[in-house]
């Protein structure tokens, strides 16, 4: 994991001031603006005599107040608005919202619409995972500051990533008119559904993508990652028959089993001073981890046979569970899964009788969780007598992972303290990127400072 150049201090978009000068004997490590993550965050670590006193993942992405912006709006308006929380995973926001409302209103969607919703999610997973694996994360393993710099020596690798990303974006665009903030998801179904031939046109690109995704799994399995093993508490959805996207129960590595709308029975959020994000923990105060590593561990038996086979060939199943650096392998396996599943959905597609079924709102609680590319995304709305949202709570995956990231930073930091400052800081920033944090999402959410006492 060598990379030549660390970010220079005081570059174009600085974070906020990280407080007073270190006390005598303290060492401080700071990354004031984390790069190759979505959104704006920082890392701050304070160390004395080789002991980590404090590890903070700061999130200075400006607050945008989405939970208030949706008050007084109709369910369909909410679906459009919450997409804007994140340009990388807008479909995830649309999916958690639409399922919450449909569950609350007793709407039974057409099975073909259900399949198209899964296909839409496949498209988002493919573009988001390809973006992270190739453009944001692989440069850490291959020793470059960016995918563009990496392309000078590894052009075929970058082109493969871009080709995969494009397939994901094409799927989203066919269903939702555009790949970022697609427009067609409505309560009851879609505003418009594709004809069979429009989906079949994706088939050749998906056939090619199967091979590209297999090569991706093989490539990342050949990377060298630090030996950093721990036993995280993992949380994801788990479905009786499917790999979890839109549906399933909330399960954990220590036996939790909840309906997808009951996240708040077991978890809660708290606010910390240095962050514009709220951090989540279990009600017992325990830290947990979401995302590809959690899903592969808790629902790996539901992977598409092609993805399951590729995972077995890597021999990394246990490493994925215990070492966050290997999340890149989990992401690659899921990329293959999403491509394979997308192809099957397209082959089986019959257009629904109507793009959407009629529905009417009911007052009360509307809550659901789906699996965003970065992990479980919980939405909870209170709907009033007029069918408008009266209150909302949105819990994105990155704010749930934030405490786990800080815990891992504190655990990992002692290994790098003997390295030169810039090198140590870089290693810590790489650890954070392994989580694929999406800071835009969590702000209501990232800047790296390490301080040594």
């Amino acid at each position, binding site marked *: 994991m060598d*990379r030549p150049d*660390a*970010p220079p201090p*005081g*570059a*174009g*978009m*600085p974070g*906020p001031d990280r407080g007073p000068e270190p006390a005598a004997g303290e060492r401080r490590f700071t990354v004031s*603006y*984390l*790069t*190759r*993550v*979505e959104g*704006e965050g920082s890392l701050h670590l304070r160390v004395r005599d080789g002991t980590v006193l404090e590890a903070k993942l700061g999130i200075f992405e*400006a*607050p*945008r*107040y989405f*939970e*208030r*912006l949706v008050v*007084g709006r*109709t369910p369909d308006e909410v679906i*459009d*608005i919450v997409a*804007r929380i*994140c340009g990388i995973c807008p479909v995830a926001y649309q999916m958690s919202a639409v399922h919450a409302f449909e569950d609350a209103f007793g709407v039974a969607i057409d099975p073909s619409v259900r399949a198209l919703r899964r296909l839409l999610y496949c498209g988002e997973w493919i573009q988001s995972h390809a973006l992270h694996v190739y*453009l*944001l994360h692989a440069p850490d393993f291959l020793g470059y500051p*960016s*995918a*563009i710099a990496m392309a000078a020596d590894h*052009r075929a690798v970058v082109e493969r990533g*871009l*080709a995969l*990303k494009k397939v994901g*974006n094409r799927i989203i665009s066919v269903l939702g*008119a*555009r790949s*970022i*903030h697609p*427009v067609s998801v*409505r309560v009851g179904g*879609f*505003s*418009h559904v594709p004809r069979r031939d429009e989906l079949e046109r994706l088939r050749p690109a998906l056939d090619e993508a199967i091979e590209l995704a297999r090569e991706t799994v093989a490539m990342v399995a050949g990377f060298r990652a630090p030996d950093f093993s721990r036993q995280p508490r993992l949380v994801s959805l788990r479905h009786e028959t499917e790999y979890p996207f839109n549906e399933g129960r909330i399960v954990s590595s220590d036996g939790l089993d909840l309906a997808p709308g009951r996240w708040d029975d077991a978890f*809660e*959020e708290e*606010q*910390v001073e240095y962050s*514009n994000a709220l951090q989540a923990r279990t009600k017992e105060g325990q830290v947990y981890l979401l995302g590809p590593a959690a899903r592969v561990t808790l629902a790996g038996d539901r992977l598409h046979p092609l993805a399951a086979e590729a995972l077995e060939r890597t021999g990394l199943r246990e490493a994925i569970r215990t070492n966050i650096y290997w999340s890149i392998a989990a992401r690659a396996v899921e990329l293959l899964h999403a491509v394979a599943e997308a192809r099957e959905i397209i082959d089986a597609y019959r257009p629904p009788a109507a793009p959407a079924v009629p529905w009417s709102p009911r007052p*009360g609680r509307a809550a659901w969780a789906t699996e965003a590319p970065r992990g479980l995304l919980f939405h909870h709305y*209170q709907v*009033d007598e*007029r069918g408008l949202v009266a*209150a909302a*709570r949105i819990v994105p995956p990155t704010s749930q992972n934030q405490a786990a990231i800080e815990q891992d930073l504190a655990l990992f930091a002692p290994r790098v303290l003997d390295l030169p400052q810039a090198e140590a800081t870089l290693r810590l920033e790489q650890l954070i990127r392994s989580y694929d944090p999406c800071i835009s999402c969590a702000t*209501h959410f990232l800047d790296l400072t390490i301080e040594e006492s």
Partner: protein
Amino acid sequence: MAGPAPSVPPAVARPRVGVVKFASCDGCQLTLLDLEDELLEIAARFDIVEFPEASSSRSEGPYDVLLVEGSISTPEQAEQIIELRRQAKLLVTIGACATAGGIQALRNWADHDAFRAAVYPRPEYVASLDRATPVADHVPVDAALRGCPIGIGQLRELLTSLILGRRPEIRDEAVCAECKRRGAVCVLVATGTPCLGPVTQGGCGALCPRWGRGCYGCFGPREGANVASLTGTFLAGGRERPDVGRLFAGFTAWAEPFRTVVGELGGVAGASNAGGGGGADAGRTAGAGAATGGGAGDPGNPGAGRTAGAASDPVAGGHDGQA
């Protein structure tokens, strides 16, 4: 574009480009990475010196071209944009947040402290300005790409024009014109679906009408748009004033004349609701207030489980949006 006309960019062999963001979802800068077929060619033609979402190599400038995403929403951002403007020969805003304020500008009608308290149990930890505003409210802007997100074709055209040293060819026409050219059925005429196409700047390719729904105005108002006529049509169809106001209260609500429509018809907590519909809005206010203040005591309240913050009325003290 309603914004300043794009000026002819400087003729530079390999322009130094920065891509930065303020309050936003990252979607518009992601559009650059979504140019999958051209990305490596773009990287060869442009020296991308600052793009923290995609690269750990950083630069404080100067930049030949600076692409700015996001609206100005915190005191730090208001300072940073001034310094970035000094470093940029050509500053281009990308997307509805930077160009029009974005969805977060809906808070501009409301009482900011109450908004903060509704989301954060300890609002004093969060620094943000009373209003989320477009970049052009702070510094001169040379060109603006609209949309939520920007149109990928318009971004390609902008980059091409920068290389060729000519003005970008961005059509000034309504979404309706794009609809007609593509032979799409008019959703307003055919199904009575409210559509902002007649008053909205084109550039998306009339995506919403072609996908069976009304345009929601994400490219913002056309200059000289006759919104009075369109709102009149919607109201004559028997819709309530706040229901019509909400149609305009989207991703470009803070851009005139949409801003005036929202202010007059209501539909956003804190926007005035002159001439009717006040009762409905009052009901919404009470609901929102209760939800905001409820906190820990009410298991049905999404806010429950967060330490309760200041339970001030989120709406009563709101701005009228016209200041």
